[in-house]
Every structure is written in structure tokens, then in C-alpha cells.
């Protein structure tokens, strides 16, 4: 059980994060593609930041933002009676930001690649934006949505720097699989470090293989 705990925690963190990213990422990507907001490029840059930002930078600012001395951290603590930093909820917030581009960008690309004539046809037949979204846009971009979910799941699973910064290494609360590797190596338990590493490696490979397989099948059917 002790060995499995960090792996289960990683899976839990990845699932919750992916769920949030799916629920908020799809409307957000829709807004990014279809809005005429002038400064959209700035929003797009902010979304893409975690791709180039070192995880320690993101982790450091997050810690400053949600730590016990911050305004937000104190507000959260007075509301829920427990700190946000060094908690599972804090990790979800960190992972959400860290994996945001991995979810939003594939969905955005899928929305962009839809033939505009199909949308115009739907609108000219008197269908509403919402109807068009659910019956035309979503079905046509399901491969992008699946890719976004799978990538953000896998990306969150391997996250290390942000977690160590805002979560530390607390067993059962913030010691996810990647942190467990770091900890086992320092205990000179290279065997168990290797087990965790091998499991993560295998998992990442299987996930990527599945994505490429699904995408290939999708492009073929078109």
C-alpha cells in the first residue's frame, strides 16, 4: 500500500486536473477561437507561458500567491479553515495552470480547423450558436478534445518542480510519484526509485501511443 500511495495520488491529481481542464478548457478555447477581442494575443501568450516557463518559476510565484502570508492564501484559509499551499487542492490549482496549454491548444487547433462553411450553413439554417456548438463544432473536434485531455493527464502525471515548490514532500498529501522517485533516491533505495520511474515511463509511452493511434484513425476516416 505504501508503494502504491504516491502512484494513486498522482492518478487522482491527474484525473481531477484533467476534469477541471476539460470543463473550463473547452469554453475557453471556444472564446479564444471565436471572439474578436483585440488583445486576444496577450491572453494566448499567458496561456502558453507554462510551455516555456521553468516549473520552479511558476511554483515560486504560486507559492507567493497562495502561501500563508498572501492575501489569497489567508482568504482561502479563513473560508475553508485549512491552508491552500501544501494541500491537495493547492496541487490541483498548480497542475491546472501548469497543464493549461496542453489542454487548450489542441482543442483550439481543432476548433480552428473546422470548415467555416459548415458553421455558416448551420447559422443560415436558423440554428443558434449553442446548437451549432454542440451539434457541429464539438463532434467535429472530438479528436482535439481527446488529445487535450490525454496530454494534460500525462503532463500532470509527470509534474515535479511545481509540486515540490507548492506541495513539498508530504506522504499521502503531496508526495506524488515523481516526488517519490526523488525521495527514494535520497533514501538510497534505487530499486523502488526505478520501479516508480519505470511505471511513469511505461504509462507515458502507452498514453502517447494511444493518442497517435486514435489521431491516425481519425485522419484516415476523413
Amino acid at each position, binding site marked *: 500500500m505504501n508503494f502504491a500511495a504516491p502512484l494513486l*495520488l498522482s492518478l*487522482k491529481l491527474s*484525473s481531477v486536473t484533467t476534469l477541471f481542464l476539460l470543463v473550463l478548457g473547452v469554453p475557453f478555447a471556444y472564446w479564444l477561437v471565436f471572439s474578436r477581442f483585440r488583445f486576444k494575443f496577450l491572453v494566448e501568450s499567458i496561456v502558453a507561458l507554462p510551455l516555456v516557463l521553468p516549473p520552479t518559476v511558476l511554483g515560486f510565484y504560486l507559492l507567493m500567491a497562495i502561501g500563508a502570508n498572501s492575501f489569497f492564501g489567508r482568504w482561502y484559509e479563513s473560508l475553508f479553515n485549512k*491552508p491552500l499551499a501544501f494541500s491537495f487542492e493547492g496541487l490541483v490549482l498548480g497542475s491546472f495552470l501548469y497543464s493549461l496549454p496542453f489542454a487548450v491548444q489542441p482543442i483550439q487547433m481543432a476548433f480552428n480547423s473546422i470548415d467555416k462553411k459548415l458553421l455558416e450553413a448551420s447559422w443560415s439554417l436558423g440554428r443558434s450558436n449553442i446548437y451549432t456548438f454542440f451539434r457541429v463544432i464539438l463532434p467535429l473536434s472530438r479528436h482535439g478534445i481527446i488529445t487535450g485531455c490525454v496530454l494534460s493527464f500525462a503532463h500532470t502525471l509527470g509534474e515535479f518542480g511545481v509540486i515540490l515548490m507548492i506541495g*513539498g*514532500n*508530504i*506522504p499521502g498529501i503531496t508526495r506524488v510519484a515523481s516526488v517519490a522517485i526523488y525521495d527514494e533516491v*535520497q*533514501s538510497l533505495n534505487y530499486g523502488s526509485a526505478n520501479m516508480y520511474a519505470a511505471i511513469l515511463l511505461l504509462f507515458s509511452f502507452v498514453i502517447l501511443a494511444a493518442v497517435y493511434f486514435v489521431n491516425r484513425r481519425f485522419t484516415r476516416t476523413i
Partner: protein
Amino acid sequence: MKKITGFCLIIILILIFGFSAFVRASENILIASASNLRFAMHDICHDFQEENPSIQTKVSYGSSGNFFAQIKQGAPFDIFFSADATYPELLEKEGLAVKEMREVYAVGNIVLWFPKESKVAPDTGMHAVTSSEVMKLAIANPRHAPYGLAAEESLRYYGLWEEVKRKLIYGENISQTAQYIHTGAADAGIIALSLANSSKMLHEGKYWMIPDESHSDIEQVYVVLKRGKGKKSVRKFLDFIHGKNGSNILSRYGFVFPGTGENR
């Protein structure tokens, strides 16, 4: 197809949440422990849990300075076993620790450690670090790891600091430093005696005890934090550490006890 995928996803989610709810034990103690205690603390928790099966101890290991920073940011620990006296004192001053729940639990030692294949004779003393055999010397980061600070003081005491400075590699904490020499990434290192005495390292190398007069005393102090205030399980754990069983484990790893200057 779509329905099956959704169904599988829901089943997986239920399994994960079900499992993690099941894992949660009744009484938890969250411990922040200086890395030099790693192997001793592991034994202590093991024996403690045998005596008190209803209490679960969860230990996080790291450098004392990092824990100090984490606790200030709201990290939810019950007890902090520091490798020095300063950080616990500061925590008490800042109102993050319980008053009068701060105590010296052990005095630590540092050793100069070489892997057993090394050609350096360990009894040549501190000057062995200048040998050409030693290309990289590992110490813990003196800025936040008390054992790293002791290592620096000692190297300065022997007038070797400037000379070996370019050979130094810094571990984030003392057990990462031990990992560097254990894996051969460094040719020698200054680590805690308690790590050199662990079963993982004892037969992997040889060491020279660094004399006490070369550095200030490494008085290790624990402090009960606000979260652990009034908890019965915390009291029990501290009693265990001070008791016969706990002290036996500590002295087995080479800790001496406050005031006596020798193993109790």
C-alpha cells in the same frame, strides 16, 4: 464507443477516490524531519507504530532551512525535527510553534566519507580532501542545511576552504549529499555520522570522524508546531523518542545526548 469511454472514465475515477478515502487512517502525525535523521527516524516510526497501531506517522524529509520556509508558508506539520537550534527558535518567536515544546533531542557529528574503492587512506584526516584523488567533494548546502554549515566551518577551521572550494558540489540536504557519494558522483563527502552508520552506507565506504572542536555543536532541536498543539498522539511520540527505545535507536545511529557528551 463514446459511451464506453465515458463509462470507463467514471469507473476509474470512482476507484481512485474510493481507494484514497480508504487509505486515510484515524490518527495521523505529520512530521518534518531533517534529512540526517532519515534512517533513524524510519526505525523510530516503525517501532512506534508497532506499539501504537492506531497512530500513523507520516514523515517528510528535507533540509531544515527548507522546512522552516515551508512552515512559514503554512505547511501542515505537527512536529519539526530540525538539525539545528536556530530554526525552531525562530519559529517559536514568530508564533508558529507551541511555547515550551522545544527541546534538544540529540547532538550530531559529521564525518569525512570515502567510497571503499577510494585510494585515499581515511586516517590522514581532513587534509585528505586536498588529495588529487578527490576531484569532487560533496557537502550539504551551508545556506539552509545545518550539516552543510558544520562542514563549511570545519573546512575553514583546517584552513582548507579556499583550496577545496572549486571541488565542492552541494546537496540540497544532507541525504542528497550522501546520495552523491554513494552513487560515485562525488569522490568524497562530509555527511552526518547518522547516515554513515545506516545499513545502506556502513559497508559501502570508510569514514573519518571529524573532531568536535572544528565546528560548533550540532545541537538538534525539535519543536511542536501549532497544528500539533494538544494532540495526544504527538505527546506519545515525543515520549517514545525520549524513552529507552527511542534513545537506543538514536545512539545506534551515532547520536550523542545533550549534556552527557557520550552515548546514553
